[in-house]
């Protein structure tokens, strides 16, 4: 019976797939635990340094004249740098496509205006998408999102900051898919520089004039802002990695469930076919006996 064999082969293949997806799910959940811990630790620091920078920005804005380049707002930015983080690997549901969709929406938003948007891509998936669609990127980094380190994140963002300081770009925006919990990811979009104090809750802002010590304030503020940018980038990468693992875990979990359902369905089909074959054989035997009489 060719049909029976066919079904049996299908069952075996589906069960193999199930084993693979299940293993991938386990790997992702182990990795997620580690990354989640890392993300949690760095979240506090990232949040505090952001808060601090925002407060300084609000304070500087209040004092009127803004001569620090990191806090100076350009009314009509000519060039906006868009840094976005995707994964190096697929098989993680809509994780990468969500980020790409958001980036596309931003690109669309800027299209009608005079503003030029430059893309800086982190992660193979995003790079290959924009390469395929013939959209230019000024910077492509493909092995950072799978294993983010502070040093490499700093190196990357410093290149971007150099461009900003030279005046090649007026604004830096970072987009990544962030981790909320085991089953939810959320697109996060941050404007790194110029520091935007408008997001700040106004209640906690100091009333006195901000003093900076040591006195050559630009170097201290610059060092602090650089620190903030480096850490924000690092945090975005870690957050994105945690989200990637949780997305993959979820995707692999549903893949395993689907494979199981399919195997069950095929088994029923197989049993039915077997039953049918037996019945046919029986009828043949009985009718043969009848004709002998």
């Amino acid at each position, binding site marked *: 019976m060719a049909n029976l064999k066919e079904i049996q082969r299908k069952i075996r293949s589906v069960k193999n797939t199930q084993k693979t997806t299940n293993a991938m799910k386990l790997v992702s959940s182990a990795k997620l635990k580690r990354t989640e811990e890392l993300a949690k630790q*760095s979240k506090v620091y990232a949040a*505090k340094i952001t*808060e601090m920078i925002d407060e300084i920005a609000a304070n500087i804005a209040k004092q009127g004249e803004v001569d620090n380049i990191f806090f100076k707002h350009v009314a009509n930015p000519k060039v906006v740098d868009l840094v976005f983080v995707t994964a190096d690997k697929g098989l993680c549901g809509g994780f990468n496509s969500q980020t790409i969709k958001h980036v596309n929406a931003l690109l669309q938003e800027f299209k009608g205006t005079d503003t030029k948007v430059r893309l800086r891509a982190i992660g193979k998936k995003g790079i290959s998408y924009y390469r395929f669609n013939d959209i230019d990127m000024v910077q492509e980094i493909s092995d950072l999102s799978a294993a983010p380190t502070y040093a490499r994140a700093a190196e990357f963002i410093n290149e971007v900051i150099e461009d900003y300081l030279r005046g090649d770009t007026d604004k830096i925006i970072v987009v990544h898919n962030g981790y909320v919990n085991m089953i939810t990811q959320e697109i996060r979009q941050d404007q790194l520089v110029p520091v935007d104090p408008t997001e700040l809750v106004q209640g906690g802002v100091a009333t006195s004039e901000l003093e*900076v010590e040591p006195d050559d304030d630009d170097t201290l503020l610059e060092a602090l802002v650089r620190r903030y940018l480096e850490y924000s980038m690092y945090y975005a990468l870690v957050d994105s990695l945690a989200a990637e693992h949780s997305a993959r875990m979820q995707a692999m979990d549903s893949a395993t469930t689907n494979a199981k359902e399919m195997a069950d369905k095929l088994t029923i089909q197989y049993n039915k076919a077997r039953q049918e074959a037996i019945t046919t054989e029986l009828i043949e035997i009985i009718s043969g006996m009848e004709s002998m009489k």
Partner: protein
Amino acid sequence: MKTMKLEIVTPHGLVYDADVAQVTLPGKEGEFGVLPEHAALVSLLDAGVIMIDAGNKKEINVAINGGYVKVDEKKVSCIVDGAVALTDDDGALSARLEEAKELLKKAETSSTAIATAVGKVESIAKAR
């Protein structure tokens, strides 16, 4: 008694977060004390010991290896690279003191600053 909020954060998490009466910080240009309603200030921190007067005659010391501080009327936020709180909650003070000395010795700053800070940690150890 007036109090202000003090936060000490490292890349590995929050070290200290409570209302305090006074805090003494190791600034790059010398140690300085901060009371509630201090004028807004941003400063560089050297490796050293943050001395916290938590009120009720309770004193807490935190060793740090450098960073930044932002002061305003209601709040002091320290962003540091590494910190060890020299508290004796669970009897592990001597281990923490050792840890603090290690942290200070590795700090990237002048040797005098390190020596002063280590000396301070040692005097805290003796006081207990």
